[in-house]
């Protein structure tokens, strides 16, 4: 019999997980990593002209995973040249033929799903159960869905024809590296555009592994080019004059910087930026279900989710009950080795992000909110943060206003429907919101009043290639997914 779980003695109320420790259950599939990854330009892996490289580390243990090429301005330019050259042929292909390439990508990714899931987890720190059950299958689904659009573009804008824009520059974040790449590539390619894409510097590996799939799929050279690097490379991708459009997913701060950078050009843009979503629980909600939804809303992917339900607004009559259940629930969340199949919260993506979370949590305590963290043992090496709740939060607290992008939930209360709406909308962001109630008419009223691009009712963090995703206000503009998302990569002919 395994040893009793540490720290469980003397607490009232025995809960599941207190009696025995779990045995380790590591996922052992081979991620098939290379020691060094070059840039992917014109269908080939090429050394960077900059001559520089940087290390990608595993945030779970701080060990070096691979060496990644650092693209300089000359490399980005080379990628744009390749894309510009490829555009003529790619956009002239009949849609059904373009679609076949994208179907191939979807199928080849499905074939290698487990390998990609392990690589994603090692590179970014997310729990293997999430990369295995969510990130990778959802990425394949996005390719599959958009492949099917390629021969139906006449239906995208009824009454008008659509045409591709040209070369699209795309920069994606580190929280869902492969999935964000799929969100960006699939609609751009289906519409007939060519792409220069930069993954985030801490999570380049799965993008470059996907380049192997692009080769296996026989995708014509230059249609997709991947340049790796940090902010400077990103600015070069966003600012390149050959880009007909730029698409960015990341922080609101960087999004604003790009908008300023491109002011004065006629570049098209879509921006998918930060969020500070309200997750609103009414007194008639199914409480146990809501608690699960709250946990999923804020602790999914360690809270590294732009649409995370990071502000819990709970109806006063049930506040005490919800908070008690929530505390109980997070006591059994398992924080630790992301490759362990039982892990609920993996590693924080980077040291930098960990210190940002730590700073904001300290500000919460300083400003008078009450912090709760369950007892949990964090691994000594690597970047980890325990699941954290704040009660007694007011709307002026930094933890209620700023995007923490970590496993930190700020809890506020409300008395009336109007107050809930007022508080939920009291933010410069507007990406998503959650509503928990048994009353259908109230769900629809809330969804009508909430200024957010996605409203989840009695569920949270649901995504589908057919469902448009994107924000209001400072959470950005443009949509990804569905017919609407496709239209953002087209011009009307």
């Amino acid at each position, binding site marked *: 019999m395994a040893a009793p779980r540490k720290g469980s003695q003397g607490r009232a109320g025995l809960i599941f997980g207190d009696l025995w420790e779990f045995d380790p259950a590591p996922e052992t599939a081979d991620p098939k990593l290379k020691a060094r990854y070059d840039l992917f330009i014109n269908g080939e892996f090429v050394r960077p002209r900059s001559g520089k490289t940087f290390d990608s580390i595993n945030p779970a243990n701080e060990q070096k995973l691979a060496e990644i090429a650092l693209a300089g301005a000359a490399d980005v330019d080379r990628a744009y040249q390749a894309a510009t050259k490829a555009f003529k042929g790619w956009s002239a292909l009949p849609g*059904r033929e373009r*679609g*076949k390439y994208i*179907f191939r990508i979807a199928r080849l990714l499905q074939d290698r799903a487990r390998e990609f899931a392990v690589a994603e987890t090692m590179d970014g720190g997310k729990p293997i159960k999430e990369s295995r059950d969510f990130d990778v299958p959802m990425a394949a*689904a996005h390719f*599959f*869905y958009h*492949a*099917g*659009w*390629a*021969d*139906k573009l006449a*239906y995208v804008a009824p009454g008008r024809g659509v045409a591709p824009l040209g070369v699209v520059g795309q920069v994606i974040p580190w929280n869902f590296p492969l999935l964000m790449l799929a969100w960006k590539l699939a609609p751009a390619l289906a519409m007939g555009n060519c792409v220069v894409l930069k993954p985030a510097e801490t999570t380049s590996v799965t993008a470059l592994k996907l380049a192997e799939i692009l080769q296996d799929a026989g995708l014509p050279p230059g249609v997709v080019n991947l340049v790796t690097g940090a902010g400077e490379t990103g600015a070069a991708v966003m600012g390149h004059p050959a880009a007909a459009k730029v698409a960015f997913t990341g922080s609101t701060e960087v999004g604003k910087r790009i908008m300023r950078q491109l002011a004065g050009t006629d570049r098209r843009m879509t921006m998918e930026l930060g969020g500070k979503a309200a997750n609103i629980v009414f007194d008639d909600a199914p409480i146990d279900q809501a608690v699960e939804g709250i946990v999923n809303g804020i602790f999914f992917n360690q809270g590294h989710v732009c649409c995370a339900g990071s502000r819990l607004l709970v109806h006063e009559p049930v506040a005490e009950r919800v908070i008690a259940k929530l505390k109980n629930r997070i006591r059994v969340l398992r924080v630790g080795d992301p490759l362990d199949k039982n892990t609920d919260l993996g590693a924080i993506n980077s040291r930098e992000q960990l210190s940002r979370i730590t700073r904001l949590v300290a500000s919460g305590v300083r400003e008078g909110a009450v912090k709760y963290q369950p007892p949990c043992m964090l691994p000594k090496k690597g970047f980890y943060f325990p699941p954290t709740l704040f009660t007694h939060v007011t709307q002026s607290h930094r933890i209620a206003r700023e995007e923490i992008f970590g496993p930190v939930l700020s809890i506020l209360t409300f008395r009336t*429907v109007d107050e809930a709406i007022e508080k939920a909308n009291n933010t410069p962001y507007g990406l998503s919101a959650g509503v928990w109630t048994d009353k*259908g*008419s*109230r769900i*629809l*009223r809330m969804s*009508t009043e909430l200024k957010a691009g996605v409203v989840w009712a009695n569920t949270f963090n649901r995504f589908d*290639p*057919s469902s448009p995703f994107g924000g209001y206000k400072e959470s950005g503009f443009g949509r990804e997914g*569905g*017919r609407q998302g496709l239209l953002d990569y087209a011009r009307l002919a």
Partner: protein
Amino acid sequence: MKKTDARLPITKTPKVYVGGAFIRSESARTYKVMAADGTFFANMPQCTRKDLRNAVEAAAKAGPGWARRTPYNRAQILYRLAEMIDARSGEIVDSLVTFGARRADAGKGMSVAVDRLIYYAGWADKYEQLIGSVNPVASAHFNFTVTEPMGVVGVIAPDTPPLLGLLSMVAPVIACGNTVVALASEKVPYPSILLGEMLATSDLPGGVVNILTGFRRELIPTFASHTHLRAVYAAAAGDDRKALRLGAADSVKRVRFVDADTAWFEDSAQGLEAIRDFVELKTTWHPIGS
């Protein structure tokens, strides 16, 4: 005794694909099919009204499960079917040539057939956004219209092109969650026997597509009158059309006819309309309030 190297080929017994199994007609009747060069090819099952009724039962049984699949899942299953057919399309091309098609035409036809299947696979998770709607009613109601599959649909395939025609008609009907009882071309039925074998090795659940062979004049009256068939999609002309319309009137069955001048090889032979004609529309009203 003279020794010879020539090995006598095994001739295959054609069986129809119903309910996920390969069966003969319950009547044990067959009809002789000759190759284009006039030689005997095989005995085809000459399916009866009873076979048709049994097939409808199999399709009805498979219906709810198929309709409940997610659109994404249906899309993947149809795509998988295209993979299975494309890999073995040489076999179908050979059989079309055996029955008189020019090899180039048969090859082109199979390419179009596979691409068309992929086209409708892609529709499975997209048509709802184009056919359904949210309706801006002048009151505090959330009012939306969604589609629902009709149920079991009868398909009567053309004689030319026998296989491309059959696939072009079946694909949109199953993409939106219906199940099918199809009657293959009477003149060139064998390629659809091969299609049945490919369906059986795809991920399509048994009973979703059932393919019969036999005589149109024997089976059309039952296609027309069977009340469990909610729609009929037919390549038919003249008296057959009238018979189908008359039978359809008894149970207010939906009927879609293939135009006589359908250009099967062209993109104009495919489209969202083929799906729209085999879904029902359902509108739901729900109040918006606190």
